[in-house]
């Protein structure tokens, strides 16, 4: 297994420890149960934003903890949603008294665990709400869509609103608006290798690609011949633009995330064609992020996320943020 790890069972924990050493001045890390939290939490009177996901998607989610974004993030085992006790310990540590929003990616495990966590938190008297992320247009049934890159955008925008002192109901509304205005789709050019498995989850001949993958090393909706960068972008963009019903003169944020094994050089080739395509339709690329923001271990491939912007969302996006992975 071509991995820089000590042993599979410890990979997620040791990585978290290294992360703690690196970002000590910004964050705190609690172990057993594991969660990462803002150094200055709880921030009294501020709505708290909490998220979680399996490990292996770095920088998601622990890389988005800090002023202007998340108050806490719970990392699970590799590709495994964190457990309710992690969320519960996190909320106890960071609750600022003004309510808390859980950002939940629509994956069976993610939803089930957060549901339990929300029930337990309510029993303990916390005022909690949640927003569901379900932006993956590769899934036809729109009620079963996976949560993907939109998570980052919702966390940033909700985080900015909370930082600005907005009350819980407004933060929830903004988070839901953001979630409903975002669509994603991803393509894989290789499988990833989970440390638990030790070999690639699936075998993909070098002239093939998997279209419509998630971020857990699953195969996609279908396998087809590997095509050029521009054609890949066409395949990803068509359902996104259609589903968002984007019109001329609208403004969007474009997120192009590598899945972990794809070099930045290729991500910018992807972004170039997205930009061209949108320009042809007179859609304005108002903001963008190009890099490894939501990954699937060492998978080669990329995810494209579009968010329809309005002035309020843009200004919340632009608000200062100080996290390991987003910083401005």
């Amino acid at each position, binding site marked *: 297994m071509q991995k820089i790890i000590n042993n599979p069972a410890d990979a997620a924990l040791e990585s978290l420890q290294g992360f703690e050493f690196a970002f000590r001045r910004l964050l705190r890390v609690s172990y057993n149960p594991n969660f990462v939290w803002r150094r200055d939490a709880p921030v009294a009177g501020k709505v708290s934003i909490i998220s979680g996901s399996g490990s292996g998607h770095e920088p998601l989610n622990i890389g988005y903890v800090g002023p202007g974004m998340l108050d806490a993030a719970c990392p699970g085992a590799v590709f*495994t949603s964190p457990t309710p006790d992690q969320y519960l310990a996190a909320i106890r540590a960071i609750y600022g008294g003004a309510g808390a929003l859980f950002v939940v990616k629509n994956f069976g495990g993610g939803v089930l665990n957060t549901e339990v966590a929300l029930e337990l938190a309510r029993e303990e008297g916390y005022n909690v709400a949640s927003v569901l992320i379900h932006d993956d247009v590769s899934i036809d049934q729109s009620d079963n869509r996976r949560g993907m890159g939109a998570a980052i955008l919702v966390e940033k925008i909700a985080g900015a609103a909370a930082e600005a002192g907005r009350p819980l109901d407004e933060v929830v509304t903004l988070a839901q608006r953001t979630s409903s205005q975002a669509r994603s789709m991803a393509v894989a050019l290789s499988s990833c290798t989970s440390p638990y498995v030790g070999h690639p989850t699936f075998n993909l001949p070098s002239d093939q690609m998997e279209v419509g993958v998630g971020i857990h090393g699953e195969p996609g909706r279908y396998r087809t011949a590997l095509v050029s960068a521009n054609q890949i972008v066409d395949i990803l963009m068509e359902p996104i633009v259609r589903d968002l019903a984007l019109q001329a003169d609208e403004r969007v944020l474009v997120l192009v995330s590598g899945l972990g094994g794809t070099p930045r050089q290729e991500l910018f080739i992807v972004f170039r064609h997205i930009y061209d395509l949108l320009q042809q339709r007179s859609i304005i690329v108002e903001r963008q992020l190009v890099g490894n923001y939501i990954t699937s271990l060492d998978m080669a491939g990329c995810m494209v996320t579009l968010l329809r912007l309005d002035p309020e969302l843009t200004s919340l996006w632009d608000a200062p943020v100080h996290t390991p992975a987003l910083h401005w």
Partner: protein
Amino acid sequence: MSQDITLAQFRRWLSLFAEQVQEQVDLLTELDAAIGDADHGANMQRGMRKVQERLQDPTATGGDIGSLFRSIAMTLISTVGGAAGPLFGAFFLRAAKDVDGTDAVSLEQLAAMFRSGLEGVQQRGKAQIEEKTMIDALQPAVEALEAAVAEGLDAAAALDRALEAARRGMLHTAELQASKGRASYLGPRSIGHQDPGATSAFYLIQSAAAALGRQAQAEES
């Protein structure tokens, strides 16, 4: 008149379940690699190790079946993660609800516990039968158990019926297209692969049959 099933047998069930899952970790991983994210083996193993630890320490699991189940449920919920953690947790949490303070149950009570456990899984996961999930092993097993009890079979025979039903349900998942859980994202590509969660649910029933049915009689004969 059927024999009561004791707390010791319940403890043995859980211990057998934990062993069996750990023996089959690689299979569970491979099944999940085909249509999921390849973590079901590791998730269950992590949980089962913790279950075994807890079983070593009788004070941690309480002196009655209800406390035992609740403690196991919380262990599963806080260590397994993924979809399986809250679902198996819901099974034991619900199955515990009428057996607080009890250290032995009748076969009828056992069937009622299983029914409650199944309802817990259904409520938490909102899946029906034929959606290619652990429900496809659990529900036929519970129904078979209830039917056997109605027929007046003893624990061994009744749990054997449940075991066979669970096995058929598990194998049948290979023919289904998933509409719940991670495999549903694959659409038609999920057909032809056995569901990992249905497989670990089968081990749950298989170890129950061994510990609560035949095994119990073997010990007594």
